[in-house]
């Protein structure tokens, strides 16, 4: 008997008990669709986290002035300006793993509800933040202290309304007119919910001279650093720490007078969190697949007993134990794979609905689909094997006599 005929016989046998076959398959359907939907949800959450970290910048380290803990008392960053322009220069030139470094000065004007930053051209590289319209900041803007400003999408919306193009217009910052030179690409929210696009960026020199004077040698803000690659962020963090401790003459055992935030590490920690969640959800779903498999085994055992006489007849006319084994195995496998296929459809639909509900990207991983179907086929074989073996080992004489 060739495989196709075996399949046909199996399908006919299953169609004889349509309701029973459907209910048996339901276990697998639920299992497979749950696995797919759960993994899709996990992947969606992961993509969400990834996107929010990616929008912060690539391979990002932020160096903050002031120690985070001093004598048991926590001083917020910026509580004491300890970073100098020479430090920035040293980071840029002396640390081999550092690709870009730029100061970000923050206007401390409390009346102004948009953050105004002063910085240099590298900043846009570090933050991975190109201009959407207009032109990007140039080195000559920085050197000349040009009174130009680059606006985030939220600021544009607040000042000019949605879809407006403010390039060339003039806005006033601390009563000083700045020409809008470019609008930055929309970045969205930070992992903590802060709106990145609520920002106006001016060249460093203009910021220092027009918006916030003083502090000459110290940086009134933070340093953004971009390492060459994600793997190198930890190394860069170490190298910068060593450099700054050396430059600030901090002896062994004393606390740093600065702190470094490694956002890549933070991101990977978050990602691990969502991955753990995905694994957890998927394994719960996998358990239901297992339960579905037990359902198949149960029904196949009933079926073998019910059809003992049929097995006897088939054996009498020449079915070998192998033929009988194949027949029942293929029946179990057909149930499992049919369940798998319907389960995929259901899982994808569920994932789609959930994704649109949470506003996440819909991410069906093709490998998970393959794994889910493969797994349900394995379930079919594993749980079909015992009943099929039982059928194939029946004694034809006893089977024929079975009432």
């Amino acid at each position: 008997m060739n495989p196709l005929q075996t399949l046909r016989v199996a399908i006919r046998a299953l169609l004889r008990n349509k309701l029973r076959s459907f209910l048996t398959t339901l276990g697998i359907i639920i299992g497979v669709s749950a696995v797919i939907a759960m993994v899709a949800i996990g992947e969606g959450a992961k993509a969400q986290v990834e996107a929010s970290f990616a929008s912060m910048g690539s391979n990002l380290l932020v160096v903050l002035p002031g120690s985070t803990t001093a004598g048991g008392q926590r001083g917020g960053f910026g509580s004491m300006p300890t970073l100098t322009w020479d430090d920035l220069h040293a980071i840029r030139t002396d640390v081999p793993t550092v690709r870009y470094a730029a100061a970000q000065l923050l206007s401390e004007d409390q009346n102004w509800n948009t953050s105004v930053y002063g910085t240099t051209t590298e900043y846009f590289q570090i933050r991975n933040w190109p201009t959407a319209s207009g032109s990007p900041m140039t080195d000559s803007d920085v050197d000349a202290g040009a009174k130009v400003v680059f606006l985030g999408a939220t600021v544009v919306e607040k000042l000019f309304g949605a879809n407006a193009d403010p390039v060339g217009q003039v806005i006033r910052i601390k009563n000083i007119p700045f020409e809008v030179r470019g609008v930055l690409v929309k970045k969205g929210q930070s992992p903590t919910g802060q709106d990145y696009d609520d920002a106006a960026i001016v060249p460093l020199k203009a910021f220092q001279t027009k918006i916030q004077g003083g502090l000459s040698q110290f940086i009134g803000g933070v340093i953004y650093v971009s390492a060459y690659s994600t793997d190198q962020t930890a190394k860069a963090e170490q190298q910068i720490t060593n450099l700054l401790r050396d430059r600030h003459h901090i002896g062994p055992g004393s606390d740093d007078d600065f702190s470094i935030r490694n956002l890549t590490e933070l991101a990977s920690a978050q990602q691990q969190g969502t991955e753990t969640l995905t694994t957890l959800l998927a394994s719960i779903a996998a358990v239901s697949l297992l339960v579905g498999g037990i359902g198949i085994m149960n029904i196949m055992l009933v079926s073998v007993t019910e059809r003992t006489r049929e097995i006897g007849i088939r054996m009498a006319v020449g079915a070998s134990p192998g033929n009988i084994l194949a027949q029942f195995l293929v029946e179990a496998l057909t149930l499992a794979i049919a369940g798998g296929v319907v389960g995929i459809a259901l899982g994808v639909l569920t994932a789609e609905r959930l994704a649109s509900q949470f506003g996440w990207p819909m991410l069906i991983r093709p490998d998970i689909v393959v794994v889910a179907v493969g797994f349900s086929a394995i379930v079919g074989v594993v749980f079909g094997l015992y009943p099929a073996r039982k059928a194939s080992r029946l004694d034809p004489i006893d089977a024929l006599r079975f009432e």
Partner: protein
Amino acid sequence: MSASPGPKLPLLVLRDVTKVYRMGDVEVHALRGVSLDVSEGEFVAIMGASGSGKSTLMNIIGCLDRPTSGTHVLAGEDVSQLDRTALARTRNRMLGFVFQSFNLLSRTSALENVELPLLYAGVPTRERHERAKAALALVGLGDRLGHHPNQMSGGQQQRVAIARALVTQPKVLLADEPTGNLDSVTSDDVMAILQRLSRTGITIVLVTHEADVALYAERVVVMKDGRVQSDRAQVPRRPAEAVPAAAGGAS
């Protein structure tokens, strides 16, 4: 007279065949040394009371069971110690079965029931259909191909079973109480078909406890207590005149 002409090659050879069943601590000797030769084309009836060992003998001849000792040679091949798969192949190629309770697959058409042995023989679909149709026509059911067993009378079901046994063109047709579930008129009908088949050269081994039925055979082997009690040739009975011809007038 239409008796087969003289002895032919021994198709079936049993030598000192014993069969011992173990039921708990008790050993049951179903066969205690049976030797039997059946030539090609013979129509042999095996008779005996229940417990005489005739069913056990039938199972061994039918390759459904293996002897505990002794040899069983079928068409020149020793089949006494074959494994289950090889026995299945032997049944498929050499033997056809007709049972007392018909043993057709329910909810399956007559045609598909008859095709079943060919399915396991690996016969291609088209040829399978043709051969199954021809076999059903031979037993007078050419117009009932699509009927299911529950739509047919006992006699018709048994004829489907005979068609199924014949479709592989077996060396031996084994009939185990083929008339046990049939009324006397239908019994005659079925026995007439078997007799007609015998005349075409097929070897038939019939197991029965009814003397009436055994009369249709050319040779009667009587079993008692697991041994052959008697083995004699006879002039077979002609089918009753009143039987409606099953498949057109047999010559």
